[in-house]
């Protein structure tokens, strides 16, 4: 597993750190050099709230290498309340309970591990919203 690459991505993986374009004020995730909305430089760091809704989803039964022990699992396109669409696993939910449009929130979970002795990669997944007290 690419240790350096995962390390560089830790802010976006742990805290959904993206950007808000200084020019057109649109929110961007994942962060990039050029704003996809207006074509200007994208610089202003902004951590997304983590709240959003399921835009679409599918259930993976034949997982790619590294995810075998987790299947079956759901992958969703999550529409963040700030606007960006994020691809992520859904967790703490049975596939039969997933509905398009359901509100979800970001949690930090184990994404995959590099074998029994390798680095553990943590990052964002989404789950049904657990309401405050």
């Amino acid at each position, binding site marked *: 597993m690419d240790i350096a690459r995962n390390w560089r991505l*830790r802010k976006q993986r742990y805290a959904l750190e993206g950007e808000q374009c200084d020019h057109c004020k649109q929110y961007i995730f994942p962060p990039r050099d050029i704003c996809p909305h207006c074509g200007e430089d994208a610089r202003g760091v902004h*951590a997304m709230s983590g709240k959003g809704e399921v835009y679409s989803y599918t259930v993976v039964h034949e997982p790619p290498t590294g995810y075998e022990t987790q299947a079956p699992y759901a992958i969703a396109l999550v529409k963040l309340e700030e606007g960006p669409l994020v691809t992520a696993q859904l*967790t703490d939910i049975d596939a039969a309970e997933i509905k398009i449009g359901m509100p979800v929130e970001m949690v930090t*979970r184990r994404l995959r591990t590099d074998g029994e002795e390798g680095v553990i990669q*943590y990052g964002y997944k989404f789950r049904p919203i*657990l309401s*405050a*007290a």
Partner: protein
Amino acid sequence: MNGSAEIQAERKSNAPIMRPARKTGITGYGAYVPRYRLPGKEISRVWTEGNTPPIVPEKSVPGLDEDVVTMSIEAARNALARAGIAPQKIGAVWVGSESHPYAVKPTASIVGEAIGATPNLLAADWEFACKAGSEAMQAAMGMVGSGMIDYALILGMDAAQGRPGDALEYTAGAGGAAFLIGPAEEALAVIEASYSYATDTPDFWRRVGANYPSHGQRFTGEPAYFRHTLAAGRALLEATGTQPGDYRYAVFHQPNPKFPQRAAEALGFSMEQIKTGLLAPQIGNTYAGSALIGLTAVLDEAAPGDRILLVSFGSGAGSDAFQLTATGRLPERRTLAPGTGHYIARRKEIDYGVYVRYRGKLKM
């Protein structure tokens, strides 16, 4: 158990009550319990043909993508939400656990990074069996109380291990709590005083490289749990000049439902005082999280002015005792994150086969 001459003598000669120069308190708190529950009758079915009555009805089980790091991050976010401070103000992140995902590589630096508290940060993992989190709380009182740092985030969190078929497997649960320790003026509960009592007592241990802990069977009771819990509780009551009747709540480490009830009774506390923080029947023994998540359940309902006694226990062995008083800030702040009861109510029952898969007990 009601106070041998030895305990009396030790206590009288050596009961320094800890109070920092600057008063500290809990300025934010958060709980976490994973979603899955394994009924005790399932363990009994698999290992004893159903002949062993379960010690607890069910215990909490972490999902495939959960460990002490992920559970700590969520509890820490809840504590921050209640405290309402910028994470950059946190000077220390200390995680107490006996199931850190790495033997070498701190849990605390991952948690600190995830909540945005890095890089001006003292980050460390603590180990003292089930009291690793409460001793971190005492150290936090010292660091914050001396003015070295303004806030310290401490956690007691475990994905507890129990050998398949062993008595511990019935109770070894998952979950815990986070507390942001800060100045008393901002506290939801002020820490009035604390005391720690430790001896070399081999009641429960896990050697390097071993997957599961071992224990001294009945030796875990009188010379370990009861001796330390009662000595710490008595010393704190005595030194602070308080009686059990002065407390609205008491929370003890809960390896099972019976031990904390007996300890409470021996110290003069009633079932009414301990029932709110007694979560072992619903989630099992969350090891380093056990006493601390009992405290979050109490903070979820305590009224301003209510006095709380907290007594942890860690095998090996020692107890940390705390006297806390809830403040007027508690009621409005508690609503800013999910309560302990929200996590306990969120449950999906699994059978022993799924438990074996989720806990990685199958070698493939």
